[in-house]
């Protein structure tokens, strides 16, 4: 597995460039990132103390919150740069930029089948005059959906996702079904038992091996050290350090601000 990732690093992958991005809430600057490139390595981590602005930065990348200043742009391996921060939110998924949610997000009235079908259905089928399209959409994607359901051990897809863990996994599967080229995972394993955390990590590695850039925001640092080839350390709204996991975990500033003595 690890070998795959090393080989895949040679493949050119999409990158996201953040330039002069500032966001403040009620006069308090929450994010102020001068220059940041995400996606130089297949899987990168973003860590930092609570309130450092990690989630806000991820939301700014997805343009689900507007920027006060600066730009976020996507640089696909081939083709021209796309300024994401001037695009409507729903376009992100069309460009392959997809994010899982830190807080649990679900559709209360939709079953697991519904949730997955919603994710895979192309816009051309979701028109008021195409009310007989259900079966062909299902047939086209059933195999792919079954694959993830079986992998993560979902029993009955006609049911609703009930537990927090199920909803979290469902959120991740929805993201995977969108076939992302740039995947942002905001605390993907929070609230998941160890065996499922392992499975999520396995899927992420497979995805990265096939050319997707992955960014993981996590407080479970074992996930970060195991998964990432590069780690960005964020504190007080800025990315103050970046480097390979070993150098980050031994860095004095990181130890003082975040990890605490004795972690290493």
């Amino acid at each position: 597995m690890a070998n795959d990732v090393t080989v895949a690093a040679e493949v050119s992958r999409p990158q996201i460039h953040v330039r002069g991005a500032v966001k403040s809430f009620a006069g308090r600057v929450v994010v102020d990132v001068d220059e940041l490139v995400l996606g130089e390595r297949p899987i990168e981590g973003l860590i930092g103390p609570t309130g450092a602005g990690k989630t806000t930065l991820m939301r700014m990348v997805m343009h689900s919150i507007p920027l006060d200043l600066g730009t976020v742009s996507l640089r696909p391996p081939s083709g021209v740069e796309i300024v994401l921060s001037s695009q409507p939110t729903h376009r992100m998924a069309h460009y392959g930029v997809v994010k899982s949610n830190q807080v649990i997000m679900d559709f209360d009235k939709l079953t697991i089948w519904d949730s997955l079908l919603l994710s895979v259905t192309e816009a051309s089928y979701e028109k008021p005059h195409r009310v007989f399209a259900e079966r062909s959409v299902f047939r086209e994607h059933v195999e792919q959906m079954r694959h993830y359901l079986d992998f993560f051990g979902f029993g009955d897809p006609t049911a609703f996702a009930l537990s927090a863990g199920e909803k979290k996994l469902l959120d991740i599967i929805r993201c995977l079904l969108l076939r992302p080229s740039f995947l942002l995972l905001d605390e993907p394993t929070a609230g998941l038992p160890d065996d499922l955390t392992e499975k999520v990590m396995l899927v992420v590695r497979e995805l990265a091996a096939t050319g997707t850039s992955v960014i993981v925001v996590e407080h479970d640092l074992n996930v970060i050290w195991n998964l990432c080839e590069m780690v960005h350390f964020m504190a007080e709204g800025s990315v103050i350090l970046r480097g390979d996991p070993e150098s980050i975990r031994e860095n004095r500033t990181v130890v003082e601000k975040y990890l605490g003595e004795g972690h290493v």
Partner: protein
Amino acid sequence: MTLDWLDAFLIAGLFEVAMIIGLALLLHLQLGLTRIANFGIVGFWGLGMYAFGVLYVRVDWPFGDPWQFLVCVTLATAITGLAGLVIGWLISDLDIDGVLVETLGFATIVLILATTEKDLTGGALGMGGLRFPFNIGTVKQNEFLWLLIVAIVVVAIFLYVRQVHRSPYGRLLIATGGNEALARSLGKSTYRTKLLLFAFTSALMGLLGALFGVMVRFLDINNLGVDLTLAVMVGLVLGGTARVWGAVIGVLLTVGLFDIIIQSYLPLPREWYTQAIPVLREAIFGATLILVLLFRPLGILGDMRRDKLMEKLHGK
């Protein structure tokens, strides 16, 4: 066909019930699935009715019925659809209270315009000159045929709405109503979805208004009060906003029960009909709405059952 067994009152009552079921089905798409609280139903319905009436009566068409009717009804539906597009655009970013106020405001504008634009609409005096696009004999026979035609339109709306639940489009509507931000992050343009839905359901409300105009053949601004919106809303909420059958059952139990059974078959004093009954109707409908919201907020049929539906469509 003499239709002796059928009194004119019953035809009018059945027509009202069918039309309100149609409106409730459209509101079900707006409110039940997409969570757009349209309190201006009578505005769209009334706009369709008056647009049809004005076009039919005031314009000198070079052709007669049925073409005159078909052209006017198509234009009236399109005009209402355009109004729906504009209102939909105005309410697209508002929360549920904002939507409520703005749609109510729209209905009021329609009422005021119908009252003040006397040259076009006849104002408070009303407007005659409408007629059925066919003539098969007596007034009663014509009205009965018209009832059947409108019933077919309503059944078609019902079958369409039922199919929406079984389609990717319905799923998109439910997702948009349920969690707009999440739907957007999955690549869905919720803004366009809501706009398109609001425009075409409003257009169909306008169509039902135009068809009502033909039935009564006299346009009266008293029809543009809040009564109709209330009847549709109470019917749908009682039956269950999230269910297709909710619209049918709820309207039958409210408008059907009151307008047909109580008004036609209960021996009520004659003098009640002009004054007391309309007031009583509003009071009972209002009370029903309060009681349903207190004790069974999801209506008689309760919430939608996607689990059952998905099992039926795709299996476990």
